[in-house]
């Protein structure tokens, strides 16, 4: 027996999965280390569920091998496997007339006698499982009355009652509201950290997966497109390829997905810095503006957001004052923009030139929308004040933008709707 497999709870060697005459994934080589949180990511229909169902032995592998704790999966008896591995599936189960406690207690199956009677140890394990998922208060509620989130917690508790070393979950957060989504993920992470249970879950949220997982497997186009630590694997490009993003980007630094706009309404030049622009960029992208921005330091939050949104960025290295080269480049960018937005950034020695940039804009007669609320605050003085609009906050900025760049009235294209009929 291969000794190197000992620290691995589950390994796949050249595994092919799928249904009778249709291979869905092939050539999978994976090794799950004990106590790790492993996420399977990939677009719908890529084969995440098929892979999970094969690992849990609901499906026969089409080729290759699966070893659990160094033993071939197919050689384990149902009972042996049940003591090692538990599953949470997407099937809707609603056994009638069961309390949550009784439901969770069904998970004691591999540990109880031939009639399934619960001993005091079984009871405490069940209680413990309920505590682990913060569901003690649900214990005597009828299972059928639970909400989706509560039900998911009960399902995880049932799996825990099996006292498994490996927990497989298919889309554990699907259909859940935000509160329960966060709660379930936190519970799963705690199971890894404090109980040493290996969790393998197929997930939809890349951002959550990146933050929780120890390893991620990217599943696409009939195979494993990447496998490793999320910090290395989940780059913006890898995620964009995985999900065929055209107008969105995953930013691994921010851990979030930015949605790009179509840029049809006009081109805005944003003068920002020190986080003042992040929200403005998102708002502009959402409202269909193309964005150019500058001059940003490359360690600025604004830079990460702007880049993910596909903005034209003029940049300066961190800790350096904005130099003439950057100023020229920014001025050129600004030239082709329809509107200039001042995000109201704080001014210091390193970004003083951004104020200069605004002055240039006004001299050239560009309309400047500023988020500052008083003219005193505008530290620049120019002869062409008419082009400056003080917006004060994002709401007013939006109104000013809408006045200048009217939204296409799509209702004109809709068929006539008459009330007379």
């Amino acid at each position, binding site marked *: 027996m291969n000794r190197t497999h000992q620290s691995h709870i589950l390994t796949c060697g050249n595994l092919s999965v799928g249904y009778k005459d249709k291979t869905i994934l092939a050539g999978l080589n994976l090794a799950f280390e004990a106590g790790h949180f492993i996420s399977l990511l990939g677009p719908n229909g890529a084969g995440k569920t098929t892979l999970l169902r094969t690992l849990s032995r*609901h499906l026969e592998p089409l080729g290759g091998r699966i070893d659990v704790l160094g033993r071939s999966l197919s050689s384990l008896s149902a009972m042996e496997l049940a003591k090692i591995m538990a599953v949470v*599936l997407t099937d809707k189960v609603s056994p009638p007339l069961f309390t949550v406690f009784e439901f969770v207690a069904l998970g004691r199956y*591999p540990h109880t006698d031939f009639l*399934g009677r619960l001993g005091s140890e079984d009871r405490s394990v069940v209680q413990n499982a309920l505590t682990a998922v913060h569901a003690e208060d649900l214990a005597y509620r009828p299972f059928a009355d639970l909400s989706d989130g509560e039900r998911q917690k009960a399902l995880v508790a049932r799996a825990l009652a099996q006292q498994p070393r490996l927990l497989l979950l298919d889309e554990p957060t699907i259909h859940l509201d935000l509160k329960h989504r966060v709660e379930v993920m936190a519970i799963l992470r705690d199971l890894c950290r404090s109980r040493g249970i290996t969790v393998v879950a197929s997930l939809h949220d890349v951002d959550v997966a990146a933050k929780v997982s120890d390893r991620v497997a990217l599943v696409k186009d009939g195979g494993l497109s990447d496998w490793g630590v999320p910090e290395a694997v989940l780059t913006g490009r890898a995620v964009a390829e995985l999900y065929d993003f055209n107008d969105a980007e995953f930013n691994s630094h921010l851990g979030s997905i930015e949605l790009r706009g179509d840029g049809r309404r006009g081109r805005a030049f944003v003068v920002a810095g020190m986080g003042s622009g992040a929200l403005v960029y998102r708002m502009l992208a959402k409202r269909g503006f193309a964005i150019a921005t500058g001059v940003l330091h490359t360690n600025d939050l604004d830079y990460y957001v702007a880049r993910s949104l596909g903005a034209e960025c003029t940049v300066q290295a961190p800790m350096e004052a904005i130099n003439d080269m950057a100023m020229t480049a920014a001025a050129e960018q600004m030239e082709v923009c329809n509107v200039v937005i001042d995000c109201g950034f704080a001014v210091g020695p390193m970004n003083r030139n951004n104020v200069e940039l605004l002055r240039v804009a006004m001299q050239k007669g560009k309309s400047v929308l500023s988020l500052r609320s008083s003219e005193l605050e505008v530290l620049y003085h120019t002869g062409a004040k008419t082009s400056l609009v003080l917006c004060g906050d994002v709401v007013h900025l939006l109104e000013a933008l809408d006045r200048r760049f009217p939204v296409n009235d799509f209702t004109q294209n809709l068929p006539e709707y008459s009330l007379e009929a």
Partner: protein
Amino acid sequence: MTTAEYILPRADSVSWRRPLVVFALLGFLTTVLMVLNIGVGSVYFSPEEIWKTIMQHQSVSTMDAIVWKIRIPRAIAAVLGGAYLAVSGLLLQVYFRNPIVGPFILGISSGATVMVSFVMLTTLTVGMTVLSPFMTTVAAFAGAYGVMLIVVAVASRVKSGVTLLIVGLMMGYLCGAVTSILTALAEKEKIKGFVLWQLGSFSGFKWSEIAVLLVCGGLVLALIYLLSKPLNAFLLGEEYAASMGVNIRRFRILILLCACALAGMITSVAGPVAFVGLAVPHMARLGFGTSDNRILIPGACLMGALVTSLCDLIARMLLSPVELPLSAITAFFGAPIVIGLLMKRRVKL
């Protein structure tokens, strides 16, 4: 049961109280009905006379014959029939996770019927006059098991319970088609006997048959009780059951074999008795307030015994001396109960 009772730390002792009370009540009522079934009939005897006959079973009087050869076997048959059909239905409902399943939906009764129709409507068995009293029984048994074997054979190939259910339904239609063709071709005189058999009845059970039913059925019931743990796991569906350590392939063949054995045994002697297998498991679930098969298996036995005893009593006595078809009475009982339960959505599987 109030919420306060639920939250008691020793929830176990509380949850056992209700089943025990229901068990006692059902046992008592079933006993009362058995006594009534023996005591009441188209010929009147006083209770003392019956008591005497039962105690001193030696005489060769008509009364002795009526009590010992007709009423007692019939009362016992009703009890066994109800119990076996109810447990059979319970198993199938858990297995298919479908509340409208009973032994009859899977084609078991249609299989029995088609074989019996061969015996009763055609001249295939003309040469075997010696066997004729047993022929219907043997044929029904063969038919029930024939269909069951096909269903089990399909079960080992098909994964989905719903597909299997549809296979069972289609088998039922096929058997029904053959039966109706045979009926169309049969001689008039033969049809009446066949139609009567099809109505189902617990009359005419012999002691030898009852002994076989008791021994074989008892063994099957014991086996089923031992399966109550995997049956409970099965309430979560096949995939969860498998992940908890149930050997699915072996288990599902066992379940189907047991369900068919129980239903086949009764059908072969009593003819098709409708609705008991379908409705009683629901009544038991509601009565005992649980889905735990460790309670429901004996529970459905008692509930089934009670229901068929009552239905048989009504069938015999309502328009006495004319005996009403048993299946009509069970349907009058069963159909509204099933509809009511489903409308209330308390019992969904």
